[in-house]
């Protein structure tokens, strides 16, 4: 037992407890206060309608932050300055968010903002995402923000309305799953490979009902961008959220950002954030250990993110209805290798992998090389800020000279609802987060991979282990 009178708490419990407006009872869930609600055009219109129907106003517009990312074109405006949406409905949805935000006084980073971006890229870049916060969004990849030690999770549109109207949610306390990742990553292995490996290890429903806390030496050594990739895909094993305790890496990332605490408030904030760690001996409902030194570049071979393997492995020959159906859709055979399969499209982007480190890794591999004939490559930066930084470093020219397309920021081909989609039957190596059937277009076969594996596959036109093209010096 610790000498303190307080029982040992996990990071999750500390953040949860700070936000309890009313404790859970036998008859009612807890009322949990939400510090920040992120909004985008797809999952908010019906919530604003509901408020209107009831004659309610947004309780704390300054605790909301909106952007447009899902339905937006990633092609530049034409010579008349007109943006060409995929459908009139897509434009109407974006226009409606602008109207709703203006009516309720919610800050919106729209077309005219230099900070517009994918909601989970923009929030951290602005410094809106901070340790110890509760953050929600009508988007399952909200777990991304847990990289900062925030409790961040995706909600449905009805709950978006609850938060708009009351700044609160009704919540039952989830369980905790500790995932300890230790060891040094091999060359060519990234946070994306780590999280794909984790999902493969615990399964696509291995985190259901839980909040994951990632810890261990591998996580400590990761940049903020890598930690965001790690937390981003927590939902792909069913978890509500993923969290990493804040440390010097976190504070260095946040210092000086537009919405970060400034002046005297900065030191006070950091002092507080330093307490947001799990106490020694804190209890987790479950614990999983991962040896990171053994992780290889990973790719998915099936139709959910748990159907994953090392890129050079043979496709598992376990016979089950699910595997048979997945392989039939993927037009692949059990026991065969995926490496070497012809690649039609490469997509580098999404809230999982569209940040500077992702783009730098892909560009380093594609520099002075050409995209293979017959392969189309889309590179879509996560935000306007990332785009500017990448262009200042000349990354756009590396991609363009290689024969890739350099697009404007947005969710793009991750879910293909803006018109950026592949053709039926295409094999797409994608740095996004879901390889569900039809996710990137009807009949499209998605292989999830890291930016390095995607870039290597772009150059060879085949599913390729990035190590084959890297000068590792080892």
């Amino acid at each position: 037992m610790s000498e303190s009178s307080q029982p040992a708490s996990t990071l999750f419990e500390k953040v949860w407890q700070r936000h309890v407006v009313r404790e859970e009872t036998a008859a009612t869930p807890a009322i949990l206060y939400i510090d920040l609600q992120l909004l985008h055009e797809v999952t908010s219109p019906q919530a604003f309608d509901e408020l209107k129907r009831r004659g309610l106003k947004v309780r704390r517009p300054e605790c909301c932050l909106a952007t447009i990312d899902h339905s937006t074109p990633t092609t530049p405006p034409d010579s008349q300055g007109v943006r060409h949406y995929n459908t009139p409905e897509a434009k109407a949805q974006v226009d409606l968010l602008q109207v709703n935000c203006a009516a309720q006084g919610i800050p919106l980073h729209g077309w005219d903002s230099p900070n517009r971006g994918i909601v989970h890229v923009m929030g951290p870049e602005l410094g809106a995402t901070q340790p110890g916060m509760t953050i929600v969004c009508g988007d399952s990849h909200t777990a991304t923000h847990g990289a900062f030690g925030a409790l961040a999770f995706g909600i449905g549109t009805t709950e978006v309305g609850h938060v708009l109207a009351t700044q609160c949610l009704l919540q039952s306390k989830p369980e905790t799953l500790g995932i300890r990742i230790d060891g040094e990553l091999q060359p060519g292995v990234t946070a994306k490979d780590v999280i794909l490996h984790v999902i493969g290890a615990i399964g696509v429903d291995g985190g259901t009902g839980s909040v994951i806390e990632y810890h261990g030496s591998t996580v400590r050594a990761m940049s903020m961008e890598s930690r965001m990739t790690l937390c981003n895909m927590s939902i792909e094993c069913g978890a509500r959220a993923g969290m990493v305790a804040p440390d010097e890496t976190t504070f260095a990332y946040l210092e000086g950002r537009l919405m970060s605490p400034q002046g005297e408030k900065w030191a006070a904030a950091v002092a507080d954030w330093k307490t947001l760690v799990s106490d020694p001996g804190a209890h987790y409902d479950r614990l999983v250990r991962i040896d990171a030194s053994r992780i290889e570049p990973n790719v998915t071979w099936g139709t959910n993110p748990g159907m994953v393997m090392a890129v050079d492995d043979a496709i598992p020959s376990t016979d089950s209805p699910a595997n048979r159906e997945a392989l039939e859709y993927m037009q692949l055979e059990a026991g065969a290798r995926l490496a070497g399969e012809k690649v039609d499209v490469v997509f580098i982007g999404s809230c999982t992998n569209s940040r500077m480190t992702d783009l730098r890794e892909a560009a380093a591999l594609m520099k002075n090389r050409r995209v293979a004939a017959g392969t189309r490559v889309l590179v879509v930066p996560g935000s306007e800020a990332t785009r500017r930084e990448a262009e200042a470093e000349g990354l756009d020219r590396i991609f363009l000279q290689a024969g890739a397309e350099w697009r404007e920021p947005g969710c793009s081909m991750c879910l293909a609802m803006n018109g950026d989609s592949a053709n039926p039957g295409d094999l797409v190596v994608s740095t996004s987060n879901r390889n569900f059937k039809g996710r990137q277009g009807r009949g499209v076969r998605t292989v999830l991979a890291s930016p390095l594996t995607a870039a290597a596959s772009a150059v060879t036109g085949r599913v390729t282990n990035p190590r084959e093209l890297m000068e590792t010096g080892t």
Partner: protein
Amino acid sequence: MSQTGVLDSRTFNLPVDNIDTDQIIPGQFLTTTERDGLGQFCFYSWRFDENGSERASHALKAFNPGRQSVLVAGSNFGCGSSREHAPWALLDFGFKAVISSRFADIFRSNALKNGLLPVKVSEEVAAFLHAHPDHSVQIDIGNNLLTVEGHGKVEFPLDPFSAYCLTRGIDQLEFLLKNESDISRFENRRGA
């Protein structure tokens, strides 16, 4: 769901594990700003081919909306995207409840907010129902009881608050709004 909180129905089987919300309603239909009329897009890619023509044979073809309002699906139903369009589409398509051995968290929460009842059962009960298509079941929300004809009664987990809201048609937002003074007190305490 009726005011009595009891639903008598036949089941419709989709014995597939990990049905994600992209399957329930594909992303291309999410540009809507309404919540009504989404049943036409429910399991769209399963029902229609690339040209929008109905497939000659598909699992949903046998679905009888008046008779079968309980969907029996494989494990981990509703995984993936948080889109509430998924329960909206299922309800509009004709389902009032879904039986599965496991539900994804966000789907479960979204379903309960819309009166679509997620009924979690053991693998054994799920296997029985998968083996007996178009089976007669009764779901009693007030007592958390699922009666499977020829198999008996089983309890299913449903928190009392959700059961209360579902059977009385009470709205969770109204409940939150009634706690306004607690919320204000919390905000004042932290100096927000």
